[in-house]
Structures are given as structure tokens and as C-alpha cells.
């Protein structure tokens, strides 16, 4: 058993940390407050090859692996969860799905600009009445010669307002049940595709989220991603990859909670001694460090399995479930350690506590993860 990262992975972690200290930390509070997508920052991320880490160089990526991508998402999220997540969904779902399922023409046309970071991707599945229950979706793609005509409304779409490439899931044959959904690559500007306005959210506020509405949106057959009827499986494959990214985001948030709690508890003096020396605080920090370590290894293990070509769906769900719930739990504790100062806008722990909540909800709620895990272990 070898728990060592490669030298490259260690160096890449140092480099992205340096990048975050220089480019992300200084703007994280402001882009949260103003709900701004930091376009300049993403340009720099693209220049460094951070927007397509596990994608082969042939398709514009950096030719690294999924574990390295998880490490990068973790470090970005440690500084700014919105930034980490935006990279995670772009790379982990949009790029990965086209890389795994797309044909050569699709990779040339769509994956190269995505993996180089010139374009941004979005995963378009959720509907107002279809969250965990994907089968309740109502968006349809009706065949019309060499085209499909898409109608329906998707919601809570991350990168919705700014994506260049949308991966859209809809029914081509509702009667066929699980084999009736298909996935499409739809570029922005396609007639009938209309992204909505950015939703104002509790946390993850600089990540842009909106509805995406399709009204008689004609998409050529060539834009089918994978075979017709394979959409549900494709979505689940996307989730498996995406969940490792969300787990990494949770690990980054946990690390930030620990960083801030250690720093503050050593500085803050009450009753004549730094509060870190009060057992009540020290034990909170001990639990935080322990859960961080557990979450990190669960996450790295899921990513490593993926890189080894082994099944990783259950492990991705376990990592996502654990990292998400521990991130929520410990960011609340981090605010507690900071007391009143942690409740004030501008305190990092205030931001990360708001950011943590969504981890338990999106890309499969904690309840959905328990369904996946129990479904596997009880099989």
C-alpha cells in the first residue's frame, strides 16, 4: 500500500496553492459579495492548463490524471469554493463526458476549446420537478429528419448564464423508460436555447447558476453525445466523476475551516490564555483535523480508482457524502470558534459556512448518495 502522491502531484499542489494565494485569495470575498464570475481569473487558470487537467493533450488538455484534478479542485476550494466548483463541473463533467463519450469530430469541435479553457461547459439535467428523481424530467427531443427539436425547462444549471457548451439530457423516447433519455452537446447561440438570469444564492455566490430554457431548439443529429437512449447512463457517469470533484471541494472547505480555526484560536485570548489551549476548542479542532484527513483519503481513493480504470461509483458517493457533511458540520464549528467575529461579513468562516451547505444538496443530495451506497452494499 502506498499513500504517496507522485512528485508531479506534490509540485502541482504547491503551484496551485501559490496561484491561489496570489490570484484567488485577494478576490474571493469580493466575488462572493458581488456575485461576480471572475473572468480574468479563469483566463489565468486556462493559461496554466488548470481547466483540462485529466484530458489528453491531443484534445487540448494537460494530459494528467483525475487525482491531480481532485488535488487542484481541493486547493482552489480552500481559497474560494465557487472557483473550485466551477472548475470541477467544467472539467469533471463537461470535459470528461465528451472525452469519454464523444466522437472525434465532437472532440475536435467542442472538447478542445473546453479543455484549453477558452470555453466553459455546463451539465444540463435538473428540472423544476426533477432533482434526485431524474426520471421525472419532462424535457423532450423530438426527431425531425436529421434534427432533434428540444423543448423544456432546466433549472439550477451551474455555469448556465456563461457556458459556451451545454450537455443537455432529455427524452427522445419517454415510453422506453431508462433507455429513453439521450444526451446532446448544444453550443450557446443555438436558436431556441435561452439561459436565464443568475439565481441569487445563499453560498457559492460567484458560481453562476440559472435556468436554461429550450423552445423549439433544433439540434443536428451529429450533436448526440453517445448513442440515442444512452442519456441516463451518461448522466450517471457524469455524476460519478462530478461527485469526486464535489468531495474534493468539501476537502478544500474543511482545510480552510481548519486553517482559519487554528490561526484564530492561537491568536484569540480569553481568560488569560489563547483559546486553542481551552480543551473545548482544542477538541473541536482535533475532530476537524481527523475528519479532514478521512475525507481527503476517501476522495483521493475514489479518484485513484478512476485513474486505475476500476469501478469507483460507490467510492465517489462515499467521498462526496462524507466530505460534504463534514464540511457543513465543521464550518459551523469554525464559526463557533470565531464567535461573533465569525458571524461578520468578510470573515472567511462566514463565507465557507454558507458555501458548504450546497455540497449536501447538489450533484446528488446526501440522501441520494446513501441510496447509491446502500444500493451497492445491499446488492
Amino acid at each position, binding site marked *: 500500500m502506498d499513500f504517496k502522491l507522485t*512528485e508531479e502531484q506534490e*509540485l502541482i499542489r504547491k503551484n496551485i496553492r501559490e496561484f491561489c494565494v496570489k490570484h484567488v485569495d485577494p478576490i474571493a470575498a469580493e466575488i462572493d459579495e458581488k456575485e461576480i464570475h471572475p473572468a480574468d481569473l479563469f483566463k489565468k487558470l486556462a493559461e*496554466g492548463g488548470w481547466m483540462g487537467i485529466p484530458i489528453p493533450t491531443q484534445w487540448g488538455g*494537460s494530459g*494528467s490524471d483525475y487525482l491531480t484534478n481532485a488535488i487542484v479542485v481541493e486547493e482552489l476550494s480552500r481559497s474560494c469554493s465557487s472557483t473550485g466548483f466551477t472548475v470541477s463541473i467544467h472539467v469533471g463533467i463537461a470535459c470528461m463526458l465528451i472525452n469519454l463519450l464523444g466522437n472525434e469530430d465532437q472532440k475536435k469541435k467542442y472538447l478542445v476549446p473546453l479543455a484549453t479553457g477558452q470555453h466553459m461547459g455546463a451539465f444540463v439535467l435538473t428540472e423544476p420537478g426533477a432533482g434526485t428523481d431524474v426520471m421525472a424530467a419532462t424535457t423532450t427531443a423530438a426527431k425531425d429528419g436529421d434534427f432533434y427539436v428540444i423543448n423544456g425547462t432546466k433549472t439550477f444549471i451551474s455555469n448556465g448564464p456563461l457556458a459556451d457548451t451545454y450537455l443537455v439530457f432529455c427524452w427522445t423516447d419517454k415510453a422506453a423508460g431508462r433507455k429513453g433519455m439521450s444526451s446532446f452537446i448544444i453550443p450557446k447561440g443555438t436558436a431556441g436555447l435561452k439561459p436565464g438570469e443568475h439565481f441569487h444564492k445563499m453560498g457559492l455566490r460567484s458560481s453562476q447558476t440559472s435556468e436554461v430554457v429550450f423552445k423549439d431548439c433544433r439540434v443536428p443529429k451529429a450533436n448526440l453525445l453517445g448513442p440515442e437512449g444512452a442519456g441516463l447512463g451518461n448522466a450517471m457517469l457524469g455524476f460519478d466523476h462530478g461527485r469526486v470533484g464535489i468531495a474534493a471541494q468539501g476537502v478544500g472547505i474543511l482545510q480552510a475551516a481548519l486553517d482559519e480555526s487554528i490561526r484564530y484560536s492561537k491568536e484569540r485570548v480569553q481568560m488569560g490564555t489563547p483559546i486553542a489551549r481551552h480543551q473545548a476548542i482544542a477538541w473541536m479542532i482535533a475532530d476537524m483535523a481527523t475528519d479532514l484527513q478521512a475525507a481527503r483519503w476517501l476522495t483521493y481513493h475514489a479518484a485513484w480508482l478512476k485513474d486505475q480504470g476500476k469501478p469507483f461509483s460507490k467510492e465517489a458517493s462515499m467521498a462526496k457524502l462524507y466530505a460534504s457533511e463534514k464540511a457543513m458540520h465543521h464550518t459551523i464549528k469554525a464559526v463557533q470558534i470565531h464567535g461573533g467575529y465569525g458571524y461578520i461579513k468578510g470573515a472567511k468562516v462566514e463565507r465557507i459556512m454558507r458555501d458548504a451547505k450546497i455540497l449536501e444538496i447538489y450533484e446528488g443530495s446526501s440522501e441520494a448518495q446513501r441510496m447509491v451506497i446502500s444500493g451497492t452494499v445491499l446488492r
Partner: protein
Amino acid sequence: MPTLIACFKWVIDEAYIRRGSDGKLDLSAVDYKIGEYDRNAIEEAARLRDAGGGGSVIGITVGTTEAAKGVKDGLSRGMDRAFFIADPDFRDLEPARTAAILAEVIQSRIPQYDLITCGEGSSDLYAQQVGPRLAELLGIPCVAFVQKITLGDGKIVAERKVEEGTEVVSAPTPALVTVLPDINTPRIPGVKDTLMAGKKPVTTITKRDLPSMPEARLKTVDMKAARMERSCEKFGTDPGEIKKFIDALVRKGVIR
């Protein structure tokens, strides 16, 4: 097209140093990095290469075998190839010995070069000696504390930061400069830079490959963490207490 040599050192990352309960430095869980000033040296060599429309940057470092990661790090920062002089005995070498080893390797293995760049000092011991000593051993001009360089026509023109202003110095090549942090902003390597680094050529040289080394003359006897003494005395607000407060300040030498 210029050939540039960038010297660098793989040093303890000070962010990981802890103070042990006995006041000594606790280095049990430290990580390492390329010294801060040496990053400027590598970046400047890469910049001059690119400004010259080609050429190459050869990195060179002396250290223990664990510094192999540092060589990869250096190669990801713009170096084209590297000499890695590695031996378990090369931990905490004194500047004279480091300079002698570098001089031996440069003389015996790099027949032609235009400029050697060094940081103004290492970011661990900061003795600021290796650069000037190396230039002396190689018999080439040394310009220290440089904040701007141009290279061409068989010479360098370097701006040095001196106490009252800037001094502009010209020297024939080959030459050696030690650079200040404000000479450039070192790049943050991208993912591909790091992945490609492992594919660049590295020549590893061990102690056995070197002729005799100068004897060590310096010995580190002890190293302790800096300690700031703090004391706390409480005073009241009545005139008698304020007098005591002033007396205490006088006693401590804060006021006279």
C-alpha cells in the same frame, strides 16, 4: 543564442518550521522548495534566453539526493536541462564548498556559457557568498545585487541597487550576476510545465565523480528559534498606579 546557467538551492520551506518545546527548531515535518531568490535567478535566465530568441538554460544545484524533486521543480520553471550534484553528505554545505563543487562541474562539463545567474542569497542561510565565490573560482566578472540585465554583443549591462541610487555596470561575458527579487516575477508553473519537467535531461553527478573537495571549516554548533520575551503587568488608573506604570517603563528601559 545565449547559454545561461542558473544556480539554485532546494531549501526548507520556512512555513513548516515549528519551534520545539526545548527552543530548538523542529524540522521533523518540513517540506522543501526552491529558494525564493533562486526562483528569480531561474526566471531571469529563462527571460534572457527567450529575449535572445533561443539558446538554453542549464540549471545546476548541489544537495542531498532528496533534492531530486527540486530539480524537477526547477525544470518546470523554464530550465532546459540540469546538473544535479547529489550526495547524502551534501546536507548543509558551507558556501565555500558549494561554490567549489559548482565551479568544478561548470569547468569540467559546460565548456561554453555566457552568463551565470544566482539569487542574491539562499533563502535558508542567506550567506550571500556562493555567487561571488563561484565567479572568483571561475575567474569571471561578478556583478551582485542586480535588478535589471541586458545581454548581448559579448557583454552584460546590469543595474545594481546600491544604497543611494542605481549603479549601471558593464562586464564582458562570460559573467556571473546575483539577482534581487525585484528583477522579475517568477512564473507559477502550469500543469504541463510540471509534467514536461520529468522528460527534460538531467545529469546526476555524485561525490565520487568529483576530485577532492575543500575541507569543511564551518560547523553549526547550535540552532535555536528566535524568541520574543513577553511579560504582563497590570496597573490601575489612580495617580499612584500611574506612577508605578511610569516607573515600570523606566525600569524596562522603554523610556528614560
